[in-house]
């Protein structure tokens, strides 16, 4: 899952060869603007067949690939 999410983040948000690791700060690091979080959320929901409540989809919860995995796992039952 980690790799799929990382791959998506790179394809979606990185235009140059900025290095993205599992812990790279995505939102506070300026890679993902808070506007574009929406498509990340929808991507996760579609791919893992889950539903993340809006109040859980905070910039903090989306701030790295690792954190995103934690969030997804919470809703994967």
């Amino acid at each position: 899952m980690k790799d799929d999410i990382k791959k998506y983040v790179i394809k979606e948000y990185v235009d140059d060869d900025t290095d993205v690791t599992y812990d790279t700060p995505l939102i506070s690091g300026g890679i993902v603007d808070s506007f574009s979080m929406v498509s990340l959320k929808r991507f996760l929901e579609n791919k893992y067949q889950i539903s993340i409540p809006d109040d859980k989809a905070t910039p903090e919860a989306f701030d790295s690939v690792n954190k995103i995995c934690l969030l997804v796992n919470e809703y994967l039952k």
Partner: protein
Amino acid sequence: MAFTEKTRGLYSEILTGLQTAGLFKQERFIHSAQAADIEVEYPTGAPLKKVINICANNYLGMSSHPEVVKAAHDGLDSHGYGMSSVRFICGTQDIHRTLESMVTQFLGTEDTILFPSCLDANGGVFEAVLTKDDVMISDRLVHASIIDGIRLCSAMHDTFKHSDMEHLEEKLQLHSDKRLKMVITDGVFSMDGDTAKLDKMVELCEKYNALLFVDDSHASGFIGKTGRGTHEKYGVMGEIDIITTTFGKGLGGASGGCVSGRRELVEMCRQKARPYLFSNTIAPPVVAGVIKVLEILSASTDRRDKLEHNTEFWRKGLIDAGLIIKSGDTPIVPVMLFNAKLAQDVSRDLYEEGIYAIGFFFPVVSQGQARIRTQISAGHEIHHLEKALDAFKKVGKKYDILGKSKQEIIERYGM
């Protein structure tokens, strides 16, 4: 008296921070009317200097066109100075409706509603026509006022990479379950001077049943064979659901904006758009001026043809001089310098040579993309452009950037 010394200190610190970061904006006072030749007081208190302006949005040279000035005078005499009311109480005159009809005709749409500015049009339109069941999919480089409008709207928001049609298509698929989808773009992008691929976008919007929104502020009056805008250039007139544009650039340069498009969407704005409901519309003399501008542009394409010719001359001149410009065919011609300090230095030296052009750098454009943005006008004569080219050559030589590649410039000056 709650503005304590501590509060004052807080703001002083922020302002000083902007200054040290080189982000502090300063105005230059122009003592003449807006035109190719202007008289400028800069720095403040300095004697007036005659310079050639190549950074105005005065694309068609209408800002001080004698017929437009006269029409505004006449409008002032016949319809007064102001309305002292918003539109729906007692702030609508016959000339406001006349102008709306003329814009509809000019842009080839179904209906039009005026706004105090295009910033207001963009600020109010999304909230008026979309709800939380809908999605807005915007190009990542749209104008700041569109971003503001999007923020005020409860619909979901997503973005696509600048002018990347494959990415847009993916997004349209991703959001296919939404009640309404609206694709949002500028017609001409103001920083790079490139145009949105409206033919492809119309195709995609048809395929995925989405609405298409275009801000044509940097296009109305001169892009396309008869100057109707980016939709004319791409052969899709009548197929854009919402066009917003300004009267503050090519179409006279004073102020005001509008939403033009599908009848029902325009009517929704009349019922619900907050800048329309809660702010005075365009003042009568300005309305009269814009009406004259549209009369002139509808009667003849001379001015946009001259602009096209001037633009070709300018682009070729810069390339021949060995400068790097963003390719394209619009009158927005960025001269790329990559380094922020270099852009500021070149701008200052150009001013010394009598040429007024401004450096743009981060955060207005991305890091390492600093530039001088030049904007050509039908108000320029070839002699203006020749003088400006000479200045660019002289200053370019001083900094040894003529004929140099991007790599070489960056190696020497840094990003």
